[in-house]
């Protein structure tokens, strides 16, 4: 008799059986073996055979047979399941190349613009300003222009605020400067800045070599100190380590180099894109304090420790109020405003980036909507494949992760292609980005790649979510029965609201495109007040320091006279003249306060811009003479003055301006007589109406910085003739800013042109993506409704009725989407209001045009599916169902 319990006990020793259960299991299995043994004996086996038969019951009893889960000794990598899903997703993607490529391209369009914007934002906004604690550095303006630019300060403004304010540890002033650098192989006009000695203290800038400026440097000496930029040190001095205490010749004067700034130092001038290559100490003379209205200084200050921006703002407002009361200044002229250096230098860029990011984000959402729709349709088409996978053991989670993996693979592919697109977009932006600041270092670097991968992955996860939820939230096996039943139709109907969503996103994009395009068109059409098409411009800076060749007024007058004569002698040239600053030419627009006699003899005052100009200037630039005449070069015209129509209208409404008298308010003696009225010229920018302007003869002040205008039939040909003409007069005089005036004016439209281009691109993409989405959804719906349509035809419905039925599925959600889109468009219009010109941002015609464009597109997109519905043959449809 076999001792089955001992045998079983021996076999169960290493079986992993729970110790508490061991005795019972031994009894139970021993009982089983006994019955097997008896059965074998009953079948005729002998005892040995029956014993062997019972022992075979224990074959296959493995170590740990009774543990809770089977021990899987196969080596497993971490996340093996995830890797399997990714591989399965990749196989699925590559098995449908056409479908996958279309999705990748759509994603590339959506992702590429976002990646490009991130690269720009990283350079312009995220990169910290290279100044010490820049959050404590502010600009002080004497008010703001309507377009948000700050109003510059006069020397008196600066000195008053510096003396009275306790909110700043230091307040500095600076102005643009440029001068010819001679002494090397070729003379070169370089740009710099005149600064008060504490300028670098305010910014916290430290010199790379030597020192920055210090108190006392502003005192005129024979070899005044100067600080140069890193780029100038490299370019002109070959990075000479012994540069300190060497000299350079600037505007004919010897200057002692005391310091070199590091390459990272950025000169903070919001009005100039030129690279600043030198900083020269500003000497404030009594003559600079004569007129508060002589405003041209930028003023920056470092907030004192513990002083907030709000406290400092309140204090400067108080100081402004007391100055107005003391000196009778108008509130419009002294209305102090503080702005941080960051807001000042990148504020415009931030707004532009925000608007563009909204546009790019909407385009990405549109692309994602289309892709979700395509993936849903593809999932439905693969329902049998998915059902079989589930039946063969794939869990719902595995199926869902595969679908999401497919979506992520597509999205990452789209992201890679999008980075290539972003690179092209960046090149375009850098070439045409206009006055956007801190843009020059935007590039595709490691952090941009990380952003691209992260955004692509997130996009893929979101796009794959709905198809994955369909798989996990439904009985997949049920799809086998309901392939073309009501289930598919219900889902297709739900997706018509995708059309609504795309319309809602597309309407604001198209509206923005229309507004910015009309703005650009208006800027092209605007009459700037002069004829830019036949004029050429250049500038010279006459060295006018003591002992230099243009030190005296006579020397400068002689040069200008000779220059104009030489230019007029050039072939094709009709006129030539000089002016202190060309309209929109990039130099300061000087202004002042003028006193003028009214009809009753009383004296009133008005702020106006002023320029000195030679006799030939008005002809050269094509500025019309409306009354009287302009100057001649005769000395007796020295006391003449010309005003523009706006000044004349404000000062002497309804009366002739010629013969009237006016003077600079700060100069009590010199009354000048108006000899002519010229047309209004837009001096600051095309979108700013002309201000009152006063012109006096160049010979009155003979400024050393001379802007020259030449009128000719062929400005392009004239360009080539100008340098030789100057060189013949003075070979040491650099010529700068040589360009056709039309190109100068076109450059001012650069930002608007760029904005319009970007908006039009986004709007065009919105129309195309919405059209595709509408077409795809409606095609799917017609497919699902084929049986229903066939029945309707069989029951006698007309084609027109069936067409209306189909179109209704698209048009109702499209209309609903447009209504929502109009609300979004109104918000966008409010955001763009400051950048729009010549059109009301809330013009109903713009919104109507946007909706009409999209409605037309929707109609075109529904044409093919509707045509397909018309062609349904009821006989075929009903036979298929039989």
């Amino acid at each position, binding site marked *: 008799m076999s001792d089955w319990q001992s045998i079983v006990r021996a076999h169960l020793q290493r079986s992993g059986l729970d110790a508490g*259960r061991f005795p*019972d*299991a031994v*009894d*139970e*299995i*021993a*009982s*089983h*073996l*006994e*019955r*097997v043994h008896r059965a074998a004996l009953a079948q005729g086996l002998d005892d040995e055979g029956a014993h062997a038969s019972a022992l*075979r*019951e*224990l*074959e*296959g*009893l*493995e170590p740990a*047979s*009774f543990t*809770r889960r089977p021990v899987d000794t196969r080596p497993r990598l971490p996340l093996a399941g995830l890797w399997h899903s990714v591989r399965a997703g990749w196989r699925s993607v590559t*098995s449908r190349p056409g479908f996958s490529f279309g999705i990748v391209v759509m994603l590339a369009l959506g992702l590429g613009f976002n990646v490009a914007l991130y690269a720009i934002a990283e350079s312009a906004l995220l990169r910290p300003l290279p100044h010490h604690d820049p959050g404590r550095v502010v600009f002080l303006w004497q008010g703001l222009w309507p377009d948000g630019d700050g109003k510059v300060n006069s020397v008196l403004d600066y000195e008053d605020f510096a003396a009275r304010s306790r909110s700043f540890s230091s307040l500095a002033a600076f102005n643009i400067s440029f001068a010819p650098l001679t002494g090397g192989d070729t003379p070169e006009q370089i740009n710099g800045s005149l600064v008060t000695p504490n300028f670098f203290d305010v910014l916290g800038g430290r010199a790379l070599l030597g020192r920055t400026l210090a108190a006392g440097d502003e005192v005129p000496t024979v070899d005044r100190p100067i600080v140069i930029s890193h780029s100038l040190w490299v370019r002109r001095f070959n990075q000479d380590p012994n540069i300190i205490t060497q000299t350079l010749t600037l505007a004919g004067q010897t200057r002692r180099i005391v310091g070199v700034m590091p390459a990272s130092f950025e000169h903070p001038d919001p009005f100039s894109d030129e690279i600043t290559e030198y900083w020269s100490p500003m000497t404030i003379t009594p003559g600079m304090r004569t007129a508060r209205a002589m405003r041209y200084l930028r003023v920056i200050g470092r907030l004192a420790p513990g002083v907030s921006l709000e406290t400092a703002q309140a204090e400067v407002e108080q100081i402004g109020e007391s100055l107005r009361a003391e000196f009778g200044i108008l509130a419009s002229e002294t209305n102090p405003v503080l702005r941080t250096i960051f807001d000042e230098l990148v504020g415009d860029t931030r707004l532009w980036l925000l608007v563009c990011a909204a546009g790019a984000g909407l385009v990405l959402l549109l692309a994602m909507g289309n892709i979700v729709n395509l993936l849903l349709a593809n999932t439905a*088409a*693969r*329902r*049998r*494949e998915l*059902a*079989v996978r589930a*039946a*063969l053991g794939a869990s719902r989670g595995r199926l869902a992760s595969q679908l999401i993996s497919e979506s992520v693979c597509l999205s990452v592919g789209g992201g890679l292609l999008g980075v290539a697109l972003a690179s092209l977009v960046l090149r375009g932006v850098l070439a045409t980005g206009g006055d956007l600041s801190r843009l020059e270092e935007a590039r595709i670097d490691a952090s941009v790649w990380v952003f691209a991968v992260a955004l692509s992955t997130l996009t893929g996860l979101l796009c794959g979510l709905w198809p994955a939820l369909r798989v996990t939230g439904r009985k997949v*096996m049920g799809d*086998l029965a309901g392939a073309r039943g009501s289930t598919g139709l219900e889902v297709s109907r739900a997706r018509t609201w995708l059309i609504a969503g795309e319309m809602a996103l597309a309407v604001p994009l198209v509206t923005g495109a229309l507004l910015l395009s009309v703005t650009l068109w208006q800027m092209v059409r605007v009459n700037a007040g002069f004829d830019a098409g036949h004029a050429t411009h250049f500038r010279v800076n006459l060295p006018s320091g003591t002992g230099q060749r243009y030190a005296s007024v006579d020397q400068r007058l002689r040069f200008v006279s000779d220059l104009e004569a030489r230019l007029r002698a050039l072939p094709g040239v009709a006129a030539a003249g000089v002016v202190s600053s060309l309209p929109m030419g990039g130099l300061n627009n000087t202004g002042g306060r003028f006193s003028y006699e009214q009809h009753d003899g009383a004296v009133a005052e008005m702020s106006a811009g002023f320029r000195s100009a030679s006799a030939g200037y008005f002809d050269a630039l094509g500025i019309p003479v409306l009354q009287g005449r302009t100057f001649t070069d005769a000395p007796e015209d020295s006391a003449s003055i010309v005003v523009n129509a706006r000044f004349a209208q404000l000062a002497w409404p309804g009366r002739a301006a010629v013969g009237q008298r006016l003077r600079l308010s700060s100069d009590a003696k010199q009354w000048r007589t108006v000899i002519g009225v010229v047309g209004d010229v837009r001096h600051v920018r095309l979108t700013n109406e002309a201000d009152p302007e006063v012109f006096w003869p160049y010979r009155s002040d003979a400024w050393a910085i001379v802007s020259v205008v030449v009128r000719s039939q062929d400005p392009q040909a004239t360009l080539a003739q100008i340098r030789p003409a100057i060189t013949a007069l003075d070979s040491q005089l650099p010529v700068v800013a040589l360009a056709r005036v039309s190109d100068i004016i076109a450059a001012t439209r650069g930002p608007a042109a760029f904005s319009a281009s970007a908006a039009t691109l986004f709007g065009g993409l919105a129309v195309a993506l919405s059209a595709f989405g509408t077409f795809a959804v409606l095609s799917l719906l017609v497919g699902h409704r084929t049986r229903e349509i066939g029945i309707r035809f069989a029951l006698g419905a007309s084609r027109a009725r069936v067409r209306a039925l189909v179109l209704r599925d698209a048009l109702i959600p499209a209309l609903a989407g447009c209504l929502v889109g109009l609300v979004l468009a109104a918000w966008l219009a409010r955001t763009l209001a400051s950048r729009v010109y010549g059109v009301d941002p809330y013009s109903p015609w713009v919104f109507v045009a946007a909706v009409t464009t999209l409605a037309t597109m929707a109609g075109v997109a529904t044409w093919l599916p509707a045509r397909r519905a018309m062609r349904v043959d009821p006989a075929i449809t009903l036979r298929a169902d039989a």
Partner: protein
Amino acid sequence: MTDPLFDPAAKKGSAELLILAVLDDTECHGYDIAKAIEQRTGGLLTFRAASLYPLLYRLEERGWIQGRWQQPSGERRKRTYRLTPSGRKALTAQRGQWTRFVEALSQAAGLGHV
């Protein structure tokens, strides 16, 4: 050659269903369960004690079956099993899944990749 449908891999997945289905009819000892399966499949499927009892104990831990000792007079005590209510639910679910599985295989066999 063994029919692929009944190879060990398939048998593992169907074992629970078979045991639950037998216990749906009556309360059984482990030996009787194995015999019932052998009879219902015409001898094609057999379960040895080495594979049967680990599976029975797992089903019991899951709460789908419940075992109890019986002491027939004059015999060694034996343990019998019966289906619990949750086991009956699991049996219904597994019957449905296997039915659909067979249908899916039948249909899929005639289709290519869609």
